[in-house]
């Protein structure tokens, strides 16, 4: 009964989204105020019904209703309750319901928080978001219904959630990621509305910025969580694999990063307008492409959901409509939003343009690497595959370029800057980065390594140029505290984001070059010395979990002098229902290093293959991502995005006339 209520709620939401996609938009053309005003209640209704559906599915999981096919495939009566709940998004159908719920959530947020915007614009934005919902919900209803029943032969018990997904990281990773993916639909809708209305100005960019930044922050956290999960759950200490599905999330992130910067230029200087619109379309398109790659099964990956060509065809048709349609609209309407302002070669505009170029090249190369196997097969019939070596060849250098540009970009003036003056601002940062970087890179016992040197110099360069810029802002203030208080939240957000980027680079570089690992056979009592620590294997014992049995090892870690550091308990789990083995690594986390121990195979007589890693600074990778996301949130909280309300309300009359004339 509950499942049918859920199914019915999805159908109702689908009907509401159809009305939402059509009525407010037509209202703006026919100037029907009532039609325009329908956007908000429709958004509320759509979200409400999807929430009901989502709760209904959760209820089916919580009560072990195995007559629902999706529940039977992804749950089991022995599964702990938190995992029963997260199993809602543990496979294709349910995760897509979550995706739809989030689209509706963003639509609702736009309807609520855009009271101060011109009504014509909001109506168009809501209709475009409604159109996206129509596509998503149709896909859910016609190809991936999570409420399908297995009647009359309902199984006694379920097949259990994939053990890889029975984990805390997986409870929050998909929701964060989807918030990011789907969140980009808002700026996409703003861009399309601007193309339709023919008006694209500083105000438009200001309205779009917080939506883009917050979606970007979610995506940042989502990707970081995914990387963290892979690190501890796959049991061999890797944190990024250039896996097609990782790339699918990374490409919208890179484009979104470019978009954030380009929106800043469009708002402050009124240039790059058509480029910004293009980026907004591209970012959301890449999110959709990601959905296609994951859910259609064209690529092989650890992440890939069950494959079904019918789903692929459906998403592709939707892509063709949304992306093809918006690019066509872009080609036809972009000349109407061309910018006219000029800027000189040495200006922040140029630097941000370079930033966009680097990020776009990175995205394009990753796209090629991800799709190359498909393209090669279509072109020549030969089957090839591209591994991490391809990506590692170009990506670090692009990021180094980006980091070098960053230091100049935050210091240089808008419109025009003198090179000499710029140099005098930045010379200490440059000198400091080179000197300090050189000193620190020879410090380590492994000796001097070129990539580490480059990495450290680049990281210091970012940090020191950020400091330089803050100090320069304080120069003319009576006191430092006064000066710091005067700086805006979005200014702090920007710098925090950049520091996060630096911390992330630091983590990536140091972890790649200073980590040590050993794989060895260890019998009880055996010792290993690694990175100044002694690891002693004490043996294993049997332990029982709620739905698994495990061999749990005990490894004592001490300093060389014998001082206690920690005791680690890695497990080798055997999940009964799916009959699969899982390696559960034991990690002693720390800011400067992780101690990471995993059990391999039993080798008889109580001995085990044991993998011991010393991961230098690996936490900095995710810490950096979190700092970046925090920077984004700070920027969104800035008063400037709310202050305009009064002004806008007063000018609404005029701008609306402008809209209806456009």
């Amino acid at each position, binding site marked *: 009964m509950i499942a049918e209520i859920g199914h019915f709620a999805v159908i109702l939401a689908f009907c509401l989204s159809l009305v939402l996609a059509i009525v407010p938009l037509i209202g703006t053309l026919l100037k029907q105020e009532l039609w325009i005003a329908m956007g908000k209640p429709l958004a509320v209704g759509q979200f409400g019904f999807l929430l009901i559906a989502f709760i209904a599915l959760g209820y089916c999981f919580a009560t072990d209703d195995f007559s629902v096919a999706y529940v039977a495939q992804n749950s089991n009566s022995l599964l702990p309750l938190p995992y029963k709940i997260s199993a809602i998004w543990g496979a294709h159908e349910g995760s897509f319901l979550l995706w739809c719920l989030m689209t509706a959530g963003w639509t609702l947020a736009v309807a609520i928080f855009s009271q101060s915007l011109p009504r014509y614009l909001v109506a168009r934005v809501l209709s475009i978001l409604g159109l996206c919902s129509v596509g998503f919900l149709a896909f859910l209803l016609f190809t991936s219904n999570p409420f399908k029943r297995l009647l009359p032969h309902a199984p006694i018990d379920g097949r259990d959630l994939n053990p*890889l997904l029975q984990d805390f990281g997986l409870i929050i990773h998909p929701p964060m990621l989807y918030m990011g993916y789907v969140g980009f639909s808002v700026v996409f809708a703003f861009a399309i509305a601007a193309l339709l209305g023919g008006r694209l100005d500083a105000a438009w960019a200001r309205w779009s910025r917080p939506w883009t930044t917050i979606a970007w922050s979610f995506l940042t956290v989502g990707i970081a969580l995914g990387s963290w999960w892979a690190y501890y759950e796959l049991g061999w200490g890797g944190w990024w694999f250039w896996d097609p599905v990782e790339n699918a999330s990374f490409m919208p992130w890179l484009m979104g990063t470019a978009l954030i910067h380009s929106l800043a230029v469009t708002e402050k200087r009124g240039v790059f307008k058509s480029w910004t619109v293009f980026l907004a379309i591209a970012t959301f398109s890449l999110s959709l492409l990601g959905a296609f790659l994951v859910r259609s*099964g064209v*690529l092989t990956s*650890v992440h890939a959901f069950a494959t079904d060509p019918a789903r692929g065809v459906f998403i592709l048709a939707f892509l063709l409509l949304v992306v*093809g349609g918006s690019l066509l609209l872009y080609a036809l309407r972009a000349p109407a939003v061309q910018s006219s302002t000029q800027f000189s070669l040495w200006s922040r505009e140029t630097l941000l343009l370079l930033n966009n170029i680097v990020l776009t090249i990175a995205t394009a190369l990753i796209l090629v690497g991800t799709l190359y196997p498909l393209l090669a097969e279509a072109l020549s019939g030969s089957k090839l*595959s591209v*591994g991490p070596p391809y990506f590692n060849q170009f990506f670090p250098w692009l990021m180094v370029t980006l980091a070098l540009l960053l230091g100049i970009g935050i210091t240089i003036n808008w419109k025009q800057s003198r090179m000499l003056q710029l140099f005098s601002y930045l010379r200490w940062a440059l000198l400091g980065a080179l000197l300090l970087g050189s000193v620190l890179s020879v410090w380590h016992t492994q000796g001097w390594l070129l990539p580490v040197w480059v990495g450290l110099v680049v990281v210091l360069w970012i940090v020191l140029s950020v400091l330089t810029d803050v100090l320069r802002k304080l120069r003319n203030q009576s006191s430092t505290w006064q000066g710091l208080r005067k700086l805006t939240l979005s200014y702090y957000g920007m710098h925090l984001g950049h520091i996060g980027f630096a911390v992330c680079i630091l983590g990536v570089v140091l972890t790649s070059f200073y980590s040590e690992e050993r794989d060895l056979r260890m019998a009880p009592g055996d010792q290993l010395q690694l990175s100044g620590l002694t690891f002693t294997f004490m043996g294993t014992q049997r332990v029982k979990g709620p739905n698994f049995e495990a061999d749990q090892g005990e490894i004592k870690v001490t300093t060389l002098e014998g001082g206690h550091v920690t005791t680690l308990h890695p497990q080798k789990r055997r999940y009964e229902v799916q009959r699969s083995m899982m390696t559960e690594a034991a990690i002693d986390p720390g800011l400067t290093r992780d101690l990471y121990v995993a059990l391999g195979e039993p080798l008889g007589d109580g001995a085990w293959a044991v993998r011991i890693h010393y991961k230098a600074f690996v936490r900095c990778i995710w810490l950096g991502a979190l700092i970046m996301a925090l920077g984004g949130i700070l920027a969104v909280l800035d008063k400037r995005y709310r202050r305009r309300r009064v002004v806008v309300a007063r000018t609404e009359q005029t701008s609306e006339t402008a809209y209806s004339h456009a």
Partner: protein
Amino acid sequence: MKRLKLFIPLLVFLLLAGFLYQALYQNPRTLPSALLNKPFPVFSLPGLGENQKTLDASLLKGEVTLVNVWATWCPSCHVEHPFLLRLAQQQGVRIVGINYKDDTQQAKQWLAKLGNPYQATVVDASGDLGIELGVYGAPETYVVDRQGVIRYKHIGVIDERVWQESLQPIVSQLQGKGGPS
């Protein structure tokens, strides 16, 4: 001219969409008919063992064999590995590995530390054998019968479910035919 440039993204996208559409139907999970029921491609490549003895297609004759394409850079292979070990050790399935476009040293370490489910491992560092086989990406597994003829191909990770549902029936059927050799 400038206006025409604005159509470039659209054209690129349409081209891409065309490829993606085609890709949907060249379903990588089914073997291209060209290789199904054909003898395993002829090769002569070094093995991963200590003496790097050259191996060739005769390795696959005489017994029903799973040929598993793997590499240390492939995350899915890490996932699959423990199951392959169990197949080899507990069920006595004969598995031959193809170490595909990999660092030989790392591959050796991998087998030393994680256990070796392979009767023998062929080193395909250049990926030539992979191209002949039409390897789409690691891991991939071929079922080869006693005569060295490819009978089935599976792309992606083998786990209990895949083994029970698709591979084991074929292997048992092939083993049943012709009796023990």
